[in-house]
Structure formats: C-alpha cells, structure tokens
C-alpha cells in the first residue's frame, strides 16, 4: 500500500513536471510532495519547520523555489481531502508545465489519485466514499472545463495585450502578462492563445518591465551613502526619458494608431539597452555591498562604463558619473580647504580614527588620527593624488587644531568635477599640498622655533655645549655618586637650574629644561639614572615624541657617563701633575707613580679620542647632515622621518644599538677600570703622603738623637708595612693595566671587524701602540698555544721516563727549551690530558697551604726580625723536581704571587673578584705542573741539593720590594705544594707580615694574578735561577 502511494505520487510528479527534468530531481519533488501530503493528511506528524529547513538546505535554487511555493500553497489551502490533494498536485504541477494535460493524462492522474485515496482513507472509506467520487467527478470536470475555457480565451485582442504591456513596462502585472517569481521574469500567460512569434516578442518587451522594476526598486531604497543617493537621483533622472517613452506609447495605443508589437519593441530598443547596462551596474554594486566600498565602486564602475564604445552609452554614464561624483568632490574640497571630514557614511577614502587609545604625548595624533584607506580611493583619483589630498587636509587640520592657526586659508580655486582625471586636478592638489605644508613648516620654524629647539637639544642632550656639561658635572659630581635611591629629583633639579643660570642659558632653556630620573635598579648610582628632560608642547611634541625622547635620554645618559669618566680622569691628571714633587723620591714610589701615569695616559688618550669620535663623528656629522636636510624639508612627515633617521644613525654610531652589545660591554668595562684606577690613585697618594710624613718625622728623630731607641722596632715594622703597601699598590696597578690592556685589545679587535669604525680605530691606535701590544701578547701566551697546536697527542711513558733521567740540572732555563721541544713534548701532552683529574687535588692542597700559611704568618708577625725559621710541620708532599723549565717558571711566578697576594688590601677585593672569571684557563698550567711534580719525585734529591746551595746566597735582611719577590722564587717553588719552605729565609718572613684575614682572598686569585703578572715577572726567574746555580 505504501509503495503504491509512493509510486503514484512519483508518477504524478513525473507527469506534472517537464520531461527534461532529471530523475533525481523528480525523486526529490516526489519525496517532498509526499511528505507534504503526509503532513496535511495527518498520517505522519511532520513539522512544517522541518520541511522548511530541508527545503532551505536544498542547494538547487529553482527546486527550492518551487517547493517553497508548493508548501505555501498547501499551507494556505488547508486541504483536508484526497480530492483536494489531487487537485492541488495538478495545480502545482502546472507551475512549471509547458504543455497542457490532455484528458488521458488526467484520467491517469485520476486513477492514481483514486489509488491514493483508497490508501489514505481507511477509516472513513465507507462514509465518504460516495462524496469523494462525486467530488472527484466534479473536479475532473472542472479541470476539463477549465482547459476548455482556456483554449477559448486564447483569442486575445492585440490592443488589450498592448495595454497590458504598458503595465508591464512599469513593472506592474497585467491581465495577461504576469510576473513569474520562479523564473524572475515577466511573461505572457501560458494559457493565452497567441502565435509563438508574438508571444516571444511580448516576452521580449516585457523584459523591459522587469529591468525597470529592478532599477526602480534600487532607487527606492533609502541609502545613507551620499554617493549612492547621488546615483539614485541620477538614475531617476535618466528614467524620465523612459517614462516619456511609455507615455508616448500609451498615447499611440489609445489613439488606435497603427501600432504593432514590433514597433513597440523598436521604440523601446534604446531604453532597453540603457537599462540593461544600468542593471548590470546595479548588480555589480549590490553584490559588493558588504565590503563597505560601495561608493568608491560606483565611481569606479561608472568610470569604466563611461568609456563604453557607444558614444550614447558613454555619454549616459558620464552624466551618471558626474552626478554621483558630486559628493566626493564636496568631501575633497571640504577636506582640503578646511580639514573637515563631512563623510557620515564612512564612504570617503580618508577615515578618522576616534579611538581614545591615541595618547597625545606619543606623537601619534599626527600619525594616526586620520588615515587613508586605499581601498576606498576611486580610480579617478590616483594614489599619489589621494595621498596628497590626505596630507593636505591633515596638515590643514593640524594647523587649525594644534598650531592654533585658524586664519590661514588656501588660496587656490576649489576643485570641480570637470577636473577629475585631468592634469589640472593633480596640479591643484599638488599646489594645495605644497602650500599647506610650506605653511606648516614655516610655522614650525617661525612661530614654534623648531631650529632653536633642535639646537637646545644638541647643546644640552648631546652635550654640544661643553661649557654647560663641564659645569654640570662639577656641580653634580658629589650628588650623583650617591646610591640611586638616595638621589632626589628636586635636589638635582635645583642644581641643574643653578648651573643653567651660571652658564649663559637663555630663558627658553631655563623654563623647559629639567631633570628626569630613570628607573633605578639595584646597585645603580646616581650616574646611572640621571637624565635631563625637556618639555615640549604640541605641535613640537609630535616631532619630539615619546619615542624619540627616549632615544635622547638614552644617548644623554650614555654620554654623561663617558663625560664622568673623562672628568674623573682629568681630576686624576690634576692630582698627578700637582704632585710632581713626589716623583723620583723613592724608587718604589717612583715605580708606582710611573705605572699610574702610564695607565692614566692610556686612559685619557682613549677617553679623549673616544669622546671626540662620539662628538665629531657620531653626533656632529649626522647632525650636520640633518640640519642640511631640514632646510629643504617639505612636510612634517619628512621632518619626523629625517629626525628619526638622525637618531638611528647616532645610536648606531655611539654603540648603543642592540647589535653592538659586545662593544658596549667592553666599553663599560673600560669605564669601570677607569673609576677603579681613580680609587687606586687615591690610595697611592695616601700612601705617598704617609711615607713622606714618616720620612720627615724620621729626620726629626734623627736630629733629636738616638734617645728613643725602643721606637726602632716599631719603625721597622712600619717600614716593612709600608714597603708592602707600596708593593700592594704596584700590584693593583699592574692588574689594572693588564685588565685595561686586555679590554682595549678586545675593543680594537671588534673595531677591526667593522669597516665603518675605521676612523675610530685610527684615532684610538694612531701610533699603533696597541697593535704592537697585541703582538707581544700573542708571544707571551705562547706556551699554551704551543702545546695545543703543535704537539700531537702521543702517550709514550717510557720515553718520558727516560727523558727525566736524562735531564741534569733542570733549573737552567735557556738550554732546556730546545730539549723540551724535541723530546718531552709527548710527555707534556700526556700530562696535559691528565690535568683535569688533578683539579680537585690541587684545590685541596691549596686549602691546606693556606691554613698553614696563616699559622705561619701569625707566628712570624711576632718575630718579624728573627732569623731563619724552621718549618713547623713537614710538607705533606715531598718536594717535587721542577724538571720542566717553562712550568717551573710559571710556578715561581705563582709563588711570587702568593707572596704578593698577602698584600692585597680590602679595596682590591672587588677587583680580584671581577677578575676571577678570566682566569680559568690558568688553572691548566698549575695542574700541568702538579702532575709533573708528582711524577718526578726521584729528582727531589737533586733539587734539595740545589736549594742548599741557594740559601746562602739569599740576602738575609732588608731587600727592596722588587728584588724581594724575585729572590724568593727558587725556594718558593716547592712551596706551591706545601707551604713550609716559603719561610725558610728572611725575605720570606718579611713578606708574610700581614693580617692573615686577608689571606682568604689570595687563593682564588692565584691563577688570576699569575696571568696578570706573567709578563711582569717571568724574566727574573731565569736571572735569579742563574744566580743560584
């Protein structure tokens, strides 16, 4: 039963729809109809909405439309009965049907419907059967009747049809010509019996009606866009021609003039052509509505159409374009001349950004308040022109609002539509743009004194005013040396102001210049956070915006630090030059002074050369270029851009750029060393003064007589103490010099890699001093490199053993070196490999040594002048034989350093700690030695014998500081492993007179200092060794 119903419905559908309809589509129709039927006959509960939804989902638009129509009709018809359903189906099927059903078909349908009927009306078949049949009959009859009637009315009067056409032309359905929603056309009713040619003609004519309907519906929609409105108006205007034509046609028809469909069609021909294009235009526009660029599109499309080959059509569109471009021109004029945006519908290509996020002090007002939307620029205006229009209006706006210059007006004629796409337009725009920009630039340079401000910035922020910076640094020196959080803005502001008053600063500077403190971080002192500040107002604030000012702060702070280094060094110079009387007084004082002079000179040379580079090359040159540019500046953007370029260039050249971080670090280290030098200098002079005072008192005592003999001991102690103090200062200075040189060489290495830094390099190393130094340095580092590069790794133990036994009197340095290179290389290499294992051992030993030395020191302090000391404990390790000459040399150095380390003062701790990182590689050498020592115990006897020899030669008493160090070396060497022998002679005991507490420091710095002092002391090793042997 089910099947039958389905099948019958399918048949019905198949019949009802055109034959060319595909099978699948038919099935679709069928299912829908079936479901509709089900719904309506309440067989199954199907919700209207579901069907509705399903229809919507269908992607075939025609199908969708038809089904929807079916559905609406079903809904409207409120069908209850089978007959009605069948009737309905027949009706519905007629919607898309071309030919009229013939009787047999109806009969077939009827049969089918009977089947359906039988299947459907199960419950009330008896009661209603009769009525149904009746109804069925009447239905069939009516259908047939209907058909007959249709064929009867086919004879339509031409005139009536023409009248109908008149309606149709105005977009209204007539008696015969109906609007077919499914095909979205006007067409002659199918049941109108008329010759096919006429039908076609009528349908053709009625297309005009459809076009008109479309166009007029577009014109009736309310649009906010002025350009769209203008277009609507323009189209309406054009339609009046069409109305006139219709009126004419009507007149002709009514006056029964000889008129044919063909004639009507002919008359309509030109309107038809126009309307087709207009319609095309509209469809393009409407399809783009969501992009928001409708207005621009209209003009673009109109422009395109106006270039149509047909002159009439082209004219039409030129007319349309002119009208619809009116609002655009109005916008442009208002914008160019007044800087106002009239655009309410967001259709102009210049947009205002009303976001509150634009903060004034960021300088973004100028840049971001208005912007140009290139999507909205119509083709009639080139991008260049559009930008100039934008720029002009923005400038005018800026002039009015920010520069308070309301009375200035552009003196050019307003733009008109006729100028579009002519040279005249771009000329005018150019002129307007030029005029406004000139006005703005003039205003900036005149009223707002831009150049003055730039000069002030250069004078104060870039330290161009050396007078002021000199004064300021003197005034602030003390204040800024305080800790960062102890530096107060108001104090500094006061000081800066008074400095300004003292220097010949003008009123503007006085009012605007102030102090800015950067955010203090831990360990920052005043110098790190101090910065000048300068107050700008709009419009200057746009040029000196937040970003650029940050750069200025950065540069100032940096220059200021360098200035501080320069100032500090010049103070040091003053101190030295004013104390020249101390020179050549005492030999070790002299040495210290000379050393300090040498360091100071290289520092002064560096800082002066560097500062002059900064000022002349890094600042003055770009600045000069910038000032030249400024004179030819055309607009504010250009100005801002060149200003930013200037700052970028300066930042790059003064090494503040991120990529130059390495150089930056080296520079900071160099500065730090300079400050440390100044500290050391203070110590030095304190010491010198003490020494002088003591000497004077000594003389005084001598003049009094030898009465106070008890004082001798104490003065001796003082002597020793001061002797060591001098030593200590020399050590510190040597350290500083080494550090300084290292950093300088490093810097020069970096600079050598950069072509553009050639001149700085030239300045820094004009007499190739550092160049030479670096070569020397390479030489002195020879040992490690030598080992690493030239010795192949070969483990050959027997060879090494043999070597050891072969070596006699290995303290002799010079003769051994060739031997070493020939025979013992593999051995050394092997030791080298073993080094790492020895690290821990070494450190333990060092701790032991330190402890013991502490004890020794204390005991020795009490008996400083006593004779030779016996070791209090035996060394934990036997004396090793230093067969390896170079290593021996190193170890001796180290020993001498241990001695010197005792002398390190509190103040040097920092220095040493900083250095400790650099020294790791030095550990290697120590360990090499360590290993060697362990392996060569059998030569210990030999060594002890030598030591015996050496002892008598060592001076017993007062030794000058320099010789002291060197002379202890032979005996000190074994002490590297055990602390005892260091105290074997008098000179040793003198060295150890120092507070043991300081000794803690010495361990970590051993290697470090060794590295520093290698160069200084290694020479003496062989000389003293030679003495011994």
């Amino acid at each position, binding site marked *: 039963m089910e099947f039958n119903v389905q099948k019958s419905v399918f048949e019905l559908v198949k019949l009802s729809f055109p034959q060319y309809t595909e099978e699948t589509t038919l099935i679709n129709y069928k299912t829908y109809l079936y479901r509709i039927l089900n719904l309506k006959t309440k067989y199954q509960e199907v919700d209207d909405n579901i069907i509705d939804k399903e229809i919507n989902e269908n992607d075939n638009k025609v199908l969708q439309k038809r089904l929807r129509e079916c559905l609406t009709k079903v809904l409207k018809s409120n069908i209850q009965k089978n007959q009605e359903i069948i009737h309905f189906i027949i009706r519905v099927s007629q919607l898309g049907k071309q030919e009229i059903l013939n009787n047999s078909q109806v009969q077939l349908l009827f049969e089918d419907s009977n089947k359906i009927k039988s299947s459907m009306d199960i419950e009330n078949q008896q009661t209603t059967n009769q009525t149904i049949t009746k109804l069925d009959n009447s239905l069939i009859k009516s259908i047939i009747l209907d058909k007959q009637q249709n064929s009867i009315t086919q004879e339509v009067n031409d005139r009536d049809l023409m009248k109908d056409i008149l309606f149709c032309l105005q977009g209204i359905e007539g008696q015969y010509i109906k609007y077919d929603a499914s095909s979205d056309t006007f067409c002659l009713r199918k049941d109108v019996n008329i010759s096919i040619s006429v039908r076609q003609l009528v349908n053709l004519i009625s297309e005009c009606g459809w076009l008109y309907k479309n166009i007029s519906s577009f014109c009736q929609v309310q649009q906010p866009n002025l350009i769209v409105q203008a277009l609507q108006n323009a189209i309406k205007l054009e339609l009046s021609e069409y109305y006139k034509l219709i009126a004419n046609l009507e007149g002709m028809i009514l006056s029964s003039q000889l008129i044919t469909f063909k004639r009507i069609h002919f008359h309509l021909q030109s309107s038809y052509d126009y309307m087709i294009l207009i319609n095309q235009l509209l469809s393009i526009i409407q399809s783009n509505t969501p992009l928001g660029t409708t207005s621009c599109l209209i003009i673009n499309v109109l422009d395109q159409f106006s270039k149509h080959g047909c002159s009439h059509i082209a004219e039409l569109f030129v007319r349309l374009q002119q009208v619809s471009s009116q609002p655009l021109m109005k916008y442009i004029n208002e914008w160019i001349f007044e800087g106002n945006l009239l655009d309410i519908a967001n259709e102009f290509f210049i947009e205002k950004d009303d976001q509150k996020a634009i903060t004034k002090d960021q300088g973004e007002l100028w840049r971001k308040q208005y912007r140009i939307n290139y999507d909205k620029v119509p083709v009639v205006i080139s991008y260049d022109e559009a930008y100039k229009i934008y720029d002009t209006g923005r400038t005018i706006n800026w002039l009015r609002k920010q520069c308070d210059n309301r009375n200035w007006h552009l003196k050019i004629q307003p733009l008109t539509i006729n100028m579009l796409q002519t040279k005249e337009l771009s000329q005018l725009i150019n002129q307007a743009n030029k005029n406004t920009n000139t006005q703005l630039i003039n205003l900036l340079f005149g009223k707002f004194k831009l150049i003055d401000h730039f000069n002030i910035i250069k004078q104060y922020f870039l330290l161009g005013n050396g007078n002021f910076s000199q004064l300021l640094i003197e005034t602030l020196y003390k204040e800024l040396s305080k800790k960062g959080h102890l530096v107060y803005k108001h104090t500094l502001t006061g000081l800066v102001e008074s400095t300004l008053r003292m220097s010949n600063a003008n009123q503007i500077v006085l009012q605007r210049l102030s102090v800015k403190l950067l955010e203090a971080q831990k360990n920052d002192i005043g110098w790190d956070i101090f910065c000048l500040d300068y107050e700008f107002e709009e419009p200057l604030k746009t040029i000196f915006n937040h970003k650029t000012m940050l750069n200025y702060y950065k540069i100032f702070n940096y220059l200021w630090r360098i200035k501080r280094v320069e100032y500090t060094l010049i103070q040091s110079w003053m101190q030295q030059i004013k104390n020249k009387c101390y020179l050549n007084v005492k030999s070790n004082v002299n040495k210290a002074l000379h050393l300090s002079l040498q360091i100071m000179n290289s520092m002064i040379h560096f800082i002066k050369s560097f500062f002059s580079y900064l000022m002349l090359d890094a600042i003055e040159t770009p600045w000069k270029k910038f000032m030249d540019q400024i004179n030819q500046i055309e607009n504010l953007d250009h100005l801002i851009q060149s200003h930013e370029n200037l700052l970028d260039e300066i930042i790059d050249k003064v090494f503040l750029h991120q990529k130059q971080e390495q150089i930056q670090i080296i520079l900071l280290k160099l500065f730090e060393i300079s400050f440390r030098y100044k500290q050391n200098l203070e110590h030095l002079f304190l010491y010198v003064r003490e020494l002088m005072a003591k000497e004077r008192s000594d003389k005084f005592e001598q003049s009094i007589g030898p009465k106070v003999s008890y004082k001798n001991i104490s003065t001796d102690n003082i002597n020793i103490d001061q002797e060591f103090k001098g030593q200590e200062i020399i050590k510190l200075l040597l350290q500083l010099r080494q550090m300084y040189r290292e950093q300088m060489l490093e810097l020069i290495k970096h600079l050598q890699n950069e072509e553009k830094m050639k001149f700085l390099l030239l300045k820094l190393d004009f*007499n190739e001093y550092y160049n030479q130094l670096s070569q020397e340095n390479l030489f002195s580092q020879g040992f490690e490199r030598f080992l690493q590069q030239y010795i192949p790794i070969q483990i050959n133990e027997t060879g090494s053993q043999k070597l050891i036994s072969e070596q006699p009197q290995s303290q002799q340095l010079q003769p051994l070196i060739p031997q070493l290179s020939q025979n013992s290389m593999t051995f050394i290499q092997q030791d080298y490999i073993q080094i790492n294992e020895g690290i821990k051992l070494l450190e333990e030993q060092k701790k032991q040594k330190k402890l013991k030395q502490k004890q020794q020191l204390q005991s020795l302090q009490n008996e400083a002048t006593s004779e030779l000391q016996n070791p209090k404990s035996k060394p934990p390790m036997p004396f090793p034989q230093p067969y390896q000459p170079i290593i021996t040399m190193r170890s001796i150095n180290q020993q001498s350093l241990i001695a010197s380390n005792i002398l390190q003062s509190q103040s040097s701790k920092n220095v040493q700690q900083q250095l400790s990182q650099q020294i790791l590689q030095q550990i290697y050498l120590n360990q090499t030695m360590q290993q060697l020592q362990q392996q060569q115990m059998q030569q210990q006897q030999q060594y002890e014998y030598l030591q015996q020899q050496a002892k008598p030669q060592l001076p017993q008493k007062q030794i000058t500081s320099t010789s002291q160090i060197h002379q202890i070396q032979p005996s000190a060497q074994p002490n590297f492993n055990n602390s005892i022998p260091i105290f074997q002679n008098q000179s040793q005991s003198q060295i150890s007179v120092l507070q043991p507490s300081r000794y803690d420091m010495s361990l970590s710095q051993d290697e470090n200092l060794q590295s520093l002092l290698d160069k*200084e002391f290694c020479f003496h090793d062989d000389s003293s060794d030679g003495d011994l042997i």
Partner: protein
Amino acid sequence: MPREIITLQVGQCGNQIGIEFWKQLIKEHGINNEGILEEFALQGDDRKDVFFYQADDEHYIPRALLIDMEPRVINYIQTSQFSTLFNPENIFISKDGGGAGNNWACGYSQGERYQEELMEMIDREADGSDSLEGFLMLHSIAGGTGSGSGSYILERLNDRFPKKIIQTYSVFPNQNETSDVVVQPYNSLLTLRRLAQNADAVVVLDNTALNRIAVDRLKIPIPTVSQTNSLVAMVMAASTTTLRYPGYMNNDLVSILAGLVPTPRCHFLMTGYTPLTIDRHISSVRKTTVLDVMRRLLQTKNIMVSTSTKNGNYISILNIIQGDVDATQIHKSLQRIRERKLASFIEWGPTSIQVALSKKSPYIETSHKVSGLMLANHTSIHSLFDRILKQYHKLRNRNAFLDQYKKEAMFKDSLDEFDESRECLESLISEYKAAESKNYLDWGNDDNMRIEEQQ
C-alpha cells in the same frame, strides 16, 4: 660660572706680548679699546668672562696683572689707546723703578721684596672669580724681571694655589744673534728650573724660531719685536679659542693639558701656526684644506721652536682647527698623515693627533678658510735645553759675570742654586731623551723594572 683664567704679564717682554695678546682678544670678542662691547657683538655666544670681567659700567676688563720692575713698557701701555682697558689696580711697577738689570737674582729678590703686594693683587683677582681655573704667565726667561720675578711668582703661586693650573708662555732668547744680555744662559737656566718644577705647562716660544718664521715665511727681512710679538699673540689667542668659543671638548685648560702632558715633567710644549699673517704680510699659503693645514703644522719650518722635529718623537699633539671643517676631512687628513708617516710618535703609550674644532671669531675677516694651531709635546725640545746648558757651561767654566749674582742674598753664600738648577735641567733633558725610547716609563726606576718592560 666660567672657568676663569688670570693672566700674569711679568717683565718687559711679558708685557709686550701681553698687550699684543689682549689686542687680539678684544678684536676677537668685539670689544673696543676702552673695553666696551661693540654693538655688532652684543649677541655673541662666546665666553668673554674667561679672560674678562665686567666692571660696574659694563666695561670689559681683562683679568690681567701687569707686573714689571721698571716702568717703561707699562707706561707705554698706560699712555696708549688701551690706557683704560686694564684695571689700574692690577698694574704693579716697583717703586724704585730700577728694574732687575737683566739679573735673575735681582729679579727674584725683588719679587721676594714685593711679594706681599704681588700676592695681594693675585689674591684679589683670584677672589674675583667664581671658579678659577688657573694662571697664565707671560714672560721671557732671559731677562731679569720676567725670569727672576717670574720665577719667584711661580714658586709662590704653586704654594698659594696648589690646585690651580699654572701655564706659562715663556719666550726663549734668540740664540742666533749675540744678545745684549750676556748672562742670558744663567737666567735661562735658573728660570728653567722653576718652569720645570713649578709650572704645569710651558708653551715654549723660541725667539730664534719666531724670527726665522718671520723672515722665511712672511718675508719680512728684519722683523721687529712687535711683529714677532704679534705672532706670539696669534698663537696665544688660537690656543685659547676652545676656552673662549666653547665646543663640545677641550673647554678648559685642564682638559687641553691632560691630553698633552702625559708625565708631569714633560710639560714643555711647542706650537705651530698656519697660515700666518701679520698686518699685510701674508704668507704665501693660498690653499687651506684641513690636510694642508695639518700637514704644514707638522713641518719643522712652521714650528715656533728652533729644534728639528725630524729627530725624536711626538709625545702628543693637539691641533686646534678653526674654520668650517667637517669630520670626514679630518679623517682623511689623519689617515694620510699616518700612511705617510709624517710624524713619528713615542712607542711607550697610545697617542694620536687630537683635533679640536673651534669656531672662528665672527668679527675678524680672514682670507683663509681654515687655520690651525698645533700644540705639541715633542722630545726634541731637549736640544733647546741642551744649547742653554752648553752656553751655561761656557760661562760657568770661566766663572764669568757671577759677581752680579753674588750680590743677592740667594747667592751670597754659595752658588749651589746654579748647580741644583743645572742638575734639574740635566735630569729634564735626560727624561726627554728617555722618552724617545720605548722604556721611558721606567726611567728613573731601578734596573729590574726596565728589564721587565723589555720582556
């Protein structure tokens, strides 16, 4: 608050070059002979208060002390067109007006005699300045007052103002012509000791070289004193331009000298100036590019000291370039100088030709675009001292002309002062000689250090 500098003009020569110097300064600052600022100079951004102060009546008064033991030169100044320029309180003429008779000892003892008055003048002037930078002394080392009294003042200044810079412009006698002052070598020697010990920087102005320059460069057959003096004034004015027309560097005396004087005793500076002009005598120099100027400055014939810079080394050089110059020109010049090795430098430390750019005075028309002054510390200056020492020995070996000296208290008992001064000068000479070697910095130290450096 400028860094004020007080100028002391001592003796005949000192006052003569002094007046030329002030003439040049007032011209450059647009101040007229009475000390009143010319109208065209009202807007200047120069620093006049380094060398001048303003009196109550807006007169600019030089911070200068005019000191002489005889009235001739100062009287001349007081009657000249500059009579009202100087503060009359700042003029000192010894009461007896006898002068020092070209005797150092006499000048020295006169200085001692009038020390109270002199020091009072200096103190007053020093108190009148906010932040005194230092003193400039103009004198000659050969005569009596400039050398003797000058020496005394130097000693006192050093005690009284231990933290102020003392720079001298010292005129060395012409050694080519026989001088009327036979005791020149004595005076020079004794003064040199003070210059070495009590001055922080000495700008050596060698009359021998000045004459040579006037003859050779400016084609003046017989240069007058005032002509050579105006050369000196030109050099002095140029060497102070960076102080008076501040740029970004070298704005005070200390920073200029710090770069020039690496060790305290090697502080005798040479000068060179190009292109030279005196009145209508314009040197033949026509083209003045930076390179030209800098190259010419290194030529011995342009240096105002009669030693050959071909021997020895430059310890330091500061070129003060005036005119419109940009950095690239300087770079090129420096590079060229290095490539061609136009100057040899010491090896014991980094050094270079420092270049200070300075504005030109807007009130003086010059025919040259660029002009330059060189201040240099060169080791060959010892040959100048050598000559003085040689001449001294000649006299001393014969014990000639010592009577005049023995009259004064200082030499009454012994002539130790001569010997000490000789030692001092000898040590100075040997220091300069040592500075030519690589190991200079250990000069005067024990042997160990020297060996160490070699290593």
